[in-house]
């Protein structure tokens, strides 16, 4: 472990990875329980259009990812409410639209020096001090907002109608959740890439739900799972010389499989009263 940390790129990778490991499940728990597990995937793919546009126009892709995933999230939210379509249909349409925009722009701008792989698969090991700072500067306010709005977010996740009847501004809280998700996605794409971002948002939460009896425990165990996945995945990727994004997600899948195997079945653990 120690020899990994002698390289500054590994230290930055570890720090940004752990940060993402905390942030993703905190937002993901609300998305998963609202039956919107795929929305993060939709927003991440939609932002591919933004990345391509940003590169052609010379605007930093990070800002474009942020802009496009907020836009994508709000569009999904709006279209689901205004049409007769199911959420997954709307997400599928938007996801493909973003990808198509991206592919079209790239094909038009042939010759641009565009490292598409970094965005599709993540570039955790290329994160420098400046990028780590931008991850923290974007992520800390998101975490603070979740702490402040923890109960309203839980209420609209549990039942929007009851929350609305008790006077909560449900639409505004939903928009806040979309924006927080967009920030999370913009940060996570650096670590896991467009293709695996939603894995970090969804899989640790699935594990947490499986082994917990309360919402607090779900949140806590999801975060712990997220952090363990990142650290173990990074160590494995270092020694086996494989892509860290893939290793991290595979570790999280392994932990999830353990959680459904019944080995950690805690039925009655929390409920012994």
């Amino acid at each position, binding site marked *: 472990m120690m020899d990994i940390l002698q390289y500054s790129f590994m230290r930055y990778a570890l720090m940004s990875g752990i940060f993402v490991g905390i942030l993703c499940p905190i937002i993901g728990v609300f998305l998963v*329980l609202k039956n919107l597990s795929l929305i993060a995937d939709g927003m991440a793919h939609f932002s591919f259009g933004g990345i391509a546009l940003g590169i052609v126009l010379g605007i930093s892709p990070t800002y474009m990812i942020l802009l496009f995933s907020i836009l994508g999230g709000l569009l999904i939210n709006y279209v689901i409410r205004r049409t007769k379509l199911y959420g997954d249909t709307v997400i599928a349409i938007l996801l493909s639209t973003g990808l198509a925009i991206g592919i079209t722009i790239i094909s038009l701008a042939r010759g641009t020096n565009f490292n598409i792989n970094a965005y599709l698969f993540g570039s955790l090991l290329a994160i420098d001090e400046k990028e780590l700072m931008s991850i923290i500067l974007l992520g800390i306010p998101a975490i603070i907002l979740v702490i*402040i*709005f923890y*109960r*309203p977010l*839980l*209420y609209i996740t*549990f*039942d929007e*109608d*009851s*929350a*609305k*009847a*008790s*006077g*909560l*501004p449900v639409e505004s809280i939903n928009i806040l959740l979309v924006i927080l998700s967009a920030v999370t996605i913009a940060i996570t794409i650096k670590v896991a890439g467009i293709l695996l971002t939603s894995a970090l948002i969804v899989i640790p939460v699935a594990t*947490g*739900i499986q082994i*917990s*009896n*309360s*919402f*607090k*425990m*779900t949140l806590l165990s999801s975060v712990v799972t997220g952090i363990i996945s990142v650290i173990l995945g990074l160590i494995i990727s270092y020694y086996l010389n494989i892509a860290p994004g893939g290793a991290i997600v595979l570790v999280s899948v392994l932990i999830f499989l353990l959680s459904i195997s019944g080995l950690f079945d805690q039925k009655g653990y*929390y*409920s012994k*009263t």
Partner: protein
Amino acid sequence: MSDKILEVRGLYFSYDGENVLEDITFSLDRGEFLGIIGPNGSGKSTLLKLITGILKPDRGEIKLYTDRISYIPQKITSLSYNFPATVEEIVSLGILSKGMLKRISRKDYNLIEQALDKVGLLELKNKRLGELSGGQQQRVHIARAIVSNPELLVLDEPTTGIDIVNQTRFYELLGHLNREMGITVIIVSHDISTIAGEVTTMAYLDKKLHFIGKPKDFFKKILWPIELEDLLNR
């Protein structure tokens, strides 16, 4: 002089251009227990969503003389089944109607325990919601609803899928909240026989409000024998 809690005047609502509610006008005094019955698709749930502000009317007006409203939607127990939260966590959500960012104080925890005690579930407060039976879950939602000391409690078909013994207990609990705590209750049900014993006012809704008044008058003037027979047979 009567003390009104709700006034509805000339209310219209439509889905996709088709009227679901037409010209609904009535008022409700504080302390009443209103039971609304009617066939499927008669606009009962829609009326409750309009009263609670979840939907906005196409035409007409709804005047509520309180902002302390609690609502228990239809089929909430099926939604609770896999939700990873304890009974206490769900009940604590009710505190939020006092203010979205209100922190849960020691005093609030006492209120949560009192509410759970009132519905007879205090000893189950650390259980995961999904581990409880349908009847118990429904009482969790009552506790969530009463923890903020509401003046108006609105329930949509709360006893669907609950056995008859627990249904009766549930309506007794509602009757108790209505009489002892003075909470005005509006309930939608297709089960006329179970609610008839507790309600003080009865309404029959089928797109239009065909009847509203005392339960005994309702049975006396059986105005729509076919629908009623149909209802009783469900």
